[in-house]
């Protein structure tokens, strides 16, 4: 699977796990993600719900540093984002 295919698939693939980090300040949402991504199988999607503006930048940056894949971030109707990450290894 190429990374482009994986990215396209990730955009529609439902998350295997949703982490509710709403109301939590960075770095807590990232700490939760780093721990819980290990609970899902490889190539599965973890969705982090967060409303700290730092999470919007920091979760994609964490993916880059940790070689996971940031699939996309979607705004939530009540404020904040659902930030989707695919476990790469």
């Amino acid at each position, binding site marked *: 699977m190429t990374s482009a295919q994986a990215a396209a698939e990730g955009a529609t693939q439902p998350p295997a796990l949703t982490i509710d980090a709403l109301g939590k*300040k*960075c*770095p*807590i949402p*990232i*700490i939760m993600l*780093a721990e819980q991504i290990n609970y899902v199988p490889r190539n599965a999607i973890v969705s982090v719900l967060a409303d*700290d*503006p*730092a999470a919007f*930048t*920091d979760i*994609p*940056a*964490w993916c*880059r*540093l940790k070689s996971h894949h940031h699939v996309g971030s979607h705004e939530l109707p009540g404020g904040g984002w659902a930030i989707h990450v695919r476990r790469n290894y």
Partner: protein
Amino acid sequence: MAYFDAASTEPLHPQAREALIAALDVGWADPARLYGPARRARMLLEQARTEVAEALGARPDEVSFTSSGTQAVHLGVLGALHGRRRVGRRLVTSAVEHSSVLHAAGVHERDGGSVETVGVGLTGAVDPAAFREAVLAEGTALACLQSANHEVGTVQPIAEAAAACAEAGVPLLVDAAQTAGRMPLPGGWSVLAASAHKWGGPAGVGVLVVRKGTRWRSPLPEDERERRRVPGFENVPAIVASAAALRAMAAESAGESARLSALVDRIRTEVPRLVPDVEVIGDPVARAPHIVTFSCLYVEGEALLTELDKAGFAVSSGSSCTASTLRPSHVLEAMGVLTHGNVRVSLPRGASSADVDRFLAVLPDMVRRIREDAGIKS
């Protein structure tokens, strides 16, 4: 206390202190008047102007003194836009400019103008081709670019930006606050802003340079001072001290900047070796000599700053919890780098190698303890 926050303010240079005390006694009179003490104050003011002009590669009559670097930027941006109102209302800037540029841009937008913000890559530098394209667009009145970024130290492509501006016939405003007196500045700019307390002068003095032939009109009410460019009575003693500091810094900068740059290189190499999960931010080579920034994964910036303060280190951070706002630094956001656990080390003149060693010695354990308290297993 090891003071590592020169990018916020450089301690007063000893020569500035000496000049300030002397000028308080002889430079207090109104330089606009015609009697003896006034002539003396005017002579000191004009001598300081000549020295600052020389250090910045400008002519004395192009240099005005403002009450701060922020005011220099505000007047520079809004005055250049005002002067070119008939040409266009479009302002081009980078996403990582100092807040003084962004706030001036905000005023311009509220006044009906438009602002085109050019993004930056992972190192914090604008792409010269993207900047050129933005500048060449119809109706561009002014382009702004910093000489080096105040948070991460990355040097911007000023020479390329100036060439693009020349091609488009658009003036370039350079915010040189972080590099004036520390490194040479490429030419080709039309307006320049700088701040004396960043080069070891006292607070309360900024510099606005408007090149001959650049259209500029004050956005403020008319005032006779500083060739009608800056309102208010000049702070002659502080200006004299600022010129003394700039002259001294520029004279020392070849040796001192290289020394500080080597210390920054050491921090850039050693921090990721000593501390796991750290991202060192900004361009490793094309950078200001004295600034280095890194972010520690899973660490709260405020906790780290507090611990460093307790250990005797004065540093700064772009993490959101450490600033007065709830948002992380717009610079780190625009670069797409980690914003939490962020530490900026900026070395003042004379920063000692021993203090850098001590910083590198205490940091790893400090980060480990903060991570442990947050439940992170190392």
